[in-house]
């Protein structure tokens, strides 16, 4: 090799890196909660069809929407997973970048559980207990008029019927969709039980939200990071601690941790499916309509996702901890794909 060839090689390299060819692999981004399900479908899809196995990135719901809405074409992902409904601001962002046609599929539920180790005591909570244990500011009268910063140190401070142990709760960080859902469903659920606070919602929504969604920062609630496995391990080490995580982790570790009942309902598969257990949220994925037919196998992948053997009552996603939809809703998901019905703005606003 002479020294003259080096610049030539470098030039060839530069041409090579700029040459972006067509993509024959589906790209999915989005929620880390949906990740275990999406990957299971992708793997199966790759095995039983002639298409390549889709590539799934776990970016979080918000991060996924950002990537998804950054543009049309092979350089941008085809599907984004979400553990909440897409926001209006995200739809607007999409529209601004030329993605006006989005197909929305709801494919299941996920329960959020409050659990402790098997060897620890049993606890029956209601949402008010959860709120009083974890909120930054709590009312000290039954009506909810007078607010103080949370004085509760032990569960028995909240309600004498609860065990006399220190409150110690490990949960996900603010960036997590699980945290958003927990705050919205459990904390706000408990918050609303105070009359004055409920009335506040109409008068001053901002203040209401700050109060109901504010989690205490005095060390009682411990931010345990995005890794739910870590929370489970920490629970086993500390029998007095409780953890907040998705149902699939309870399901996988049911020999070492147990879920607390909320309003007298245990977080079991049946109770979440029937909707009796209240802290559960819907899981979605969104598809770019313009990519169907351009990226090979995209439609087949979505069909595989919504087939009975995957998201049905006894499908393989249920083995992975997914709470399935009702039969009618599953039918609806399939017909949405058949007809490629787009998400309309009005529908979205009704939704949340």
């Amino acid at each position, binding site marked *: 090799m002479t020294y003259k060839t*080096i610049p030539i090689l470098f030039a060839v390299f530069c041409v090579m*890196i700029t040459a*972006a060819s067509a993509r024959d692999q589906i790209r999915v981004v989005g929620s880390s909660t949906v990740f*275990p399900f999406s990957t299971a479908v992708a793997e199966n899809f790759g095995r039983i069809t002639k298409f390549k196995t889709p590539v799934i*990135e776990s970016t979080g719901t918000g991060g996924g929407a950002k990537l998804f809405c950054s543009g049309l074409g092979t350089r941008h992902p085809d599907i984004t997973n979400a553990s909440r409904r897409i926001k209006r601001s995200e739809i607007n962002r999409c529209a601004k970048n030329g993605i006006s046609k989005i197909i929305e599929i709801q494919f299941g539920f996920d329960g959020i559980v409050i659990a402790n180790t098997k060897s620890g005591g049993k606890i029956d909570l209601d949402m008010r207990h959860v709120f009083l244990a974890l909120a930054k500011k709590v009312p000290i009268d039954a009506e909810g008029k007078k607010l103080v910063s949370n004085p509760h140190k032990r569960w028995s401070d909240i309600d004498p019927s609860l065990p006399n142990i220190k409150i110690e709760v490990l949960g996900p960080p603010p960036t997590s969709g699980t945290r958003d859902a927990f705050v919205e469903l459990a904390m706000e659920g408990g918050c609303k039980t105070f009359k004055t606070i409920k009335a506040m919602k109409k008068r001053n929504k901002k203040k209401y939200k700050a109060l109901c969604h504010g989690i205490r920062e005095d060390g009682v609630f411990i931010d345990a990071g995005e890794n*739910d496995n870590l929370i489970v391990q920490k629970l086993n080490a500390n029998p007095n601690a409780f953890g907040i995580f998705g149902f699939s982790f309870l399901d996988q570790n049911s020999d070492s941790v147990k879920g607390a009942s909320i309003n007298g309902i245990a977080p079991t598969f049946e109770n979440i499916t029937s909707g009796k257990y209240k802290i559960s949220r819907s899981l979605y994925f969104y598809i770019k309509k313009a990519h169907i037919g351009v990226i090979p196998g995209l439609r087949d992948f979505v069909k595989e996702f919504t087939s009975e053997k995957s998201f049905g009552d006894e499908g393989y996603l249920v083995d992975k901890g997914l709470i399935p939809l009702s039969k009618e809703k599953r039918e609806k998901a399939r017909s949405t794909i058949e007809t490629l019905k787009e998400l309309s703005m009005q529908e979205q606003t009704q939704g949340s």
Partner: protein
Amino acid sequence: MTNTLLKGFPIKEGERTETISKRRERRYAAEKRFKILGILSILVAISTLFLLIGNMINKGFSAFKQTYLELSISLPENKFPNEKQISPNVISELNFKSFLKRALLKKFPEIKSRRDKRLLYKLISSGATFDLQDAVFENPKLLGKTITTLAIASDDVDQYIKGNITANNQGRITIKQSKWIDKLVDDGVINQKFNLKFFTNGDSREPELAGILGATIGSLLTMLVALALAFPLGVAAAIYLEEFAPKNRWTDLVEVNISNLAAVPSIVFGLLGLAVFLGFFGMHRSAPLVGGVVLALMTLPTVIIASRAALGSVPPSIREAATGIGASPMQVVLHHVLPLAIPGILTGTIIGAARALGETAPLLMIGMVAFIVDIPQGINDSATALPVQIFLWADSPERAFVEKTAAATLVLLTVLIIMNLGAVLLRKKFERRW
């Protein structure tokens, strides 16, 4: 002299030697303490390392074994006498799952209810179906015969056999299932074998099928690209700065910036990759090519600094001698200085590469932290890297991934040890002292 000294120190001659010997003892004691401290700190470092490795081996070693069920399966007659007609499509029309189910059910004739049957079938992994299918496709003569095959067990059975989970009625393995498993163990149906799949498979959502080949090849391709860029660029930069560049304010500035670059957090390089290589150049997301370029930028300062040190340690007499017999500056460098500096340069490069190999943060931004099943075939295919695989498995809910995580860590540590050992050996072999 002594008198004046003695005036300052009101002590007698005999006492004086005593003070000196006392002082000497104190100095010796201090030296001993210093030595002990040094040995202690090394001991602490080594024991922490052993704790880490021991913990990983303890957790991860069982992942190198996999539980199998030995089943005898009667396959149906070959309906396609013409060999050419046999294609994967034709084969896959046969219901291999049901053959496996039937074979397993034969061991438990007493199981009748649908519910129990479902529980029983859960003992076998979904991968067993594909293994059987592949075996028949490779050898269609098996059709019509009864064959003994090793069906891979599901992750829960595997973990139960390894004692990582206990049976309980709400758990992954029910009491009923545990009794069946115990019976199968007694009958010699269940046994453990070396887990080859761990080294030959790509990632999977089923822990028993998940392997590190995809991630290893991804790492390899990424490192190839990174070294192909960082090594020549780094060495060229070092040669210019050390041998040719004039010493002025500009080269000082460049020098400071290179040292600075070596300390920049790696995630920043990922952001750069996202903005420049993905955004501006439109390169493929998740491709080892992008990962390699980003890691090359990250290792470049290390290579430059190490190469400059190596070039600088070549004695000036060599340069002077070469110049003296009429070599041009370029000849001096390429024929005499560089060959002598190469061992040092290589050591620096290997250490830089080892650091890059363990990096996940920059790969996060460019989409290499992803679930990728297919083994990458080239630098433009989607791929992950070994540390990314560890990160992804650590985050998975299935219990069996705990041991996979530890096992993958062991593999990564082994690769790193080999690389660092290589660096030490290279230095030992080619090192010259002047």
